[in-house]
């Protein structure tokens, strides 16, 4: 009997790992940029293309940089959460519109709501490269001194927002 139980035992061990694995995020690769100053940029704004925004403009406040695109399906997933966050006024969210067409991006914001204080455009993805973006969406928490403190890869979830991003923002603002 015992040896016939071996396959079951092996399976139980496997399931144990899978359960733990479900709680982990394989995409969560520690970013080398955490604790480093946010790479500088000077980019056109999405809504008013004659204006630009630079990374220095936000010095002195805690802000989120959300990388998004109209072609990105997962962005729709996190979008309602961002809209809600923006309404609450806890922390300003800036959008980095990544490798996108201006018209599509504007239409998309009209359809799903615009949570961004300002959206800037990065059509070639140059700034994205500086920030180490390898999938959209990604969200960065940047402190008063312009240092990246946290990076969320993939959609912002309620859980990530409540357990990581908001406490961190409060601490940094405090």
């Amino acid at each position, binding site marked *: 009997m015992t040896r016939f139980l071996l*396959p079951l035992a092996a*399976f139980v061990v496997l399931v144990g790992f*899978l359960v733990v*694995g*479900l709680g982990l995020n*394989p995409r969560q690769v520690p970013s080398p940029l955490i604790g480093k100053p946010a790479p500088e940029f000077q980019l056109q704004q999405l809504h008013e293309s004659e204006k630009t925004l630079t990374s220095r403009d936000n010095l002195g406040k805690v802000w989120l940089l959300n990388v998004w*695109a109209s072609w990105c399906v997962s962005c729709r997933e996190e979008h309602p959460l961002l809209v809600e966050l923006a309404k609450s006024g806890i922390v300003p969210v800036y959008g980095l519109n990544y490798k996108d067409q201006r018209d599509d991006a504007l239409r998309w914001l009209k359809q799903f709501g615009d949570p961004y204080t300002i959206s800037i455009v990065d059509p070639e993805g140059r700034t994205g490269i500086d920030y180490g973006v390898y999938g959209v969406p990604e969200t960065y928490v940047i402190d008063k001194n312009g240092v990246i403190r946290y990076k969320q890869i993939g959609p912002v979830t309620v859980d990530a927002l409540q357990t990581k991003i908001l406490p961190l923002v409060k601490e940094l603002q405090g």
Partner: protein
Amino acid sequence: MIPELGNFALILALLLALIQGTLPIIGAARGIPSWMALARPVVQGQFVFVAIAFFCLAYSFVTSDFSVINVVQNSNSKLPLEYRFAATWGSHEGSLLLWTMMLATWSVAVSIFSRHLPNDMVARVLGVMGLVSVGFLIFMLFTSNPFERMLPGAMEGSDLNPLLQDPGMVCHPPMLYMGYVGFSVAFAFAIAALLSGQMDATWARWSRPWTTVAWLFLTIGIMMGSWWAYYELGWGGWWFWDPVENASFLPWLVGTALVHSLAVTEKRGSFKSWTVLLAICAFSLSLLGTFLVRSGVLTSVHAFATDPKRGIFILTFLVVIVGGSLLLFAWRAPKIGLGGKFELVSRESMLLGNNLLMMVAAGSVLLGTLYPLFMDALQLGKISVGAPYFEAVFVPLMTPAVFLMGLGPLARWKQASLPELAMRLRWAFAVSLITALLMPFIMGEWKPFVSFGLLLAFWVIASIVVSLIHRLRSSGKEGLFAKLAAQSPSYYGMHVAHLGIAVFIIGVTLVGGYETEKDVRMEIGDTVAVGGYTFRFNGATKAPGPNYMADIGNVDVLRNGEKVNVLEPEKRTYNASGMAMTEAAIDTGILRDLYVALGEPLENGAWIVRVYHKPFVDWIWFGCMLMAFGGFLAVTDRRYRLSSRKQREPEPVEDKKIAVKPGKAPAAPLIARSKKA
């Protein structure tokens, strides 16, 4: 309206599946004929409703109904018709529906082609398949409904992933799923045998053709995936050891072991509990594959949008189905018995050896695939396991397996003699050794691993020839044709499949040893010489496609200064997603492929161009097709088509009488026959 109909059909299918998964099994346990008789009509009813749901979803895609979320996310009004249809299974939800559809198809096939099986067996088999179907229908209805609406509807869809907009992708998932899901039949037969405690050669004969058909679909499915990756991903590789590729390869390895183990159980009555375990494992790995792809625990090019809720559901389902069957196995298998005895040197032991090698190979691929997850779970850091690990592990395991593959078909059942085998095969070995040593010189350069790979391939081919000659000499018929015709299709099937392995090895070895790859910057008019050919780049022009903009390169292929072909590789940018896709241009030949792909555009009309010369690369996929064709030949064997009213004992022991002559042996059913008989 149509999506709601589809949704409703799914709910009805779930209700029928619930009946199918309970009443017939209870009926079989308690001996209630009317409950057992429910199985067939319920299966057929479930099939009808799942098919309705499937066609409703297909209709929504074809007519671009952008009020259905699934359609919005995976289709676009500019998408050509065939891809709108194929987009039906291009998403997570749709592929689940395809899975369920395949399961329903297999169940109906079992219900139709099981007229000669005892009623209780049919009831149990269909019941188990019903339980699997229940799991998938609940999963779909509660966490991944393909018919979910969004209000207001969208104006336009975000398009099907451009990677999937390819003829190969239209066929690859259905083939693969046919294989995956097909193992559910072997699984259901195994569980039915455990439940009933009846397990013998007849049982093996019933489940064998089903397993072989599932295996051959899986073979074709994997082959198409590999071929697609070769021409679509633009870097000319044919296998990447990606977690999802591995997820399809694992059931294939175990399925291959199962096909061979079933042969022993059918012919000799041995390996019973081992065969049952393999059947459970093959299907469990199909389910595990589904879990790995759907739950997002591993990163992969195949990963769909992931959702932890889904992961938990599939994991629970996995625990219930796999855990339950392994528990049942631990409880019932000790009673099954061991079957016929055999000596250390015999065909059984060689097949067992091969089986073990296959399982160890599957185990190491599984380990490699899940290793990053294990390390992460134990907080030992993030790592990734790549091709070097898999190649280092896989080749040493497959070497003895391929060696045994040449030996096995010539060995006698029960007891074989090593000296006799050596006598018979010494010429085969000598010929293959000499050819393997000389052949690399013809290719231009001697490399040890090329010689080694070729030795394995030629060894298989030579041993097939020896086996065939031996068979023909002892067949007792007059004339070559009569002698050839006297052999059974399953005998040919075996050798064709083995030949497929040899052809596959030749392809892998030669392309690995002699391919040339050049990534060069080419101005208009530049030439580059690769593999004896000269390639001249004539620039690229823009041309619009139905839902993309393409840069079409023009490359002349010259041999000895004469133009032999023009290749037009494309670089497409899809309008809706902005994604860039590479369409390689390939000049296919028996002995080599010429492969040209566009890289990145540079200034003044220059491009980065990838020019590859790939000798014998098509043999890889041709070998797979031979394997699948071998499987096809094997299932056409007469003995599977004859009704089991002529059930017979396991095959006679002698090697010479393996060819099955139905009805020759007296009918001596080993199982307690059901009431029907």
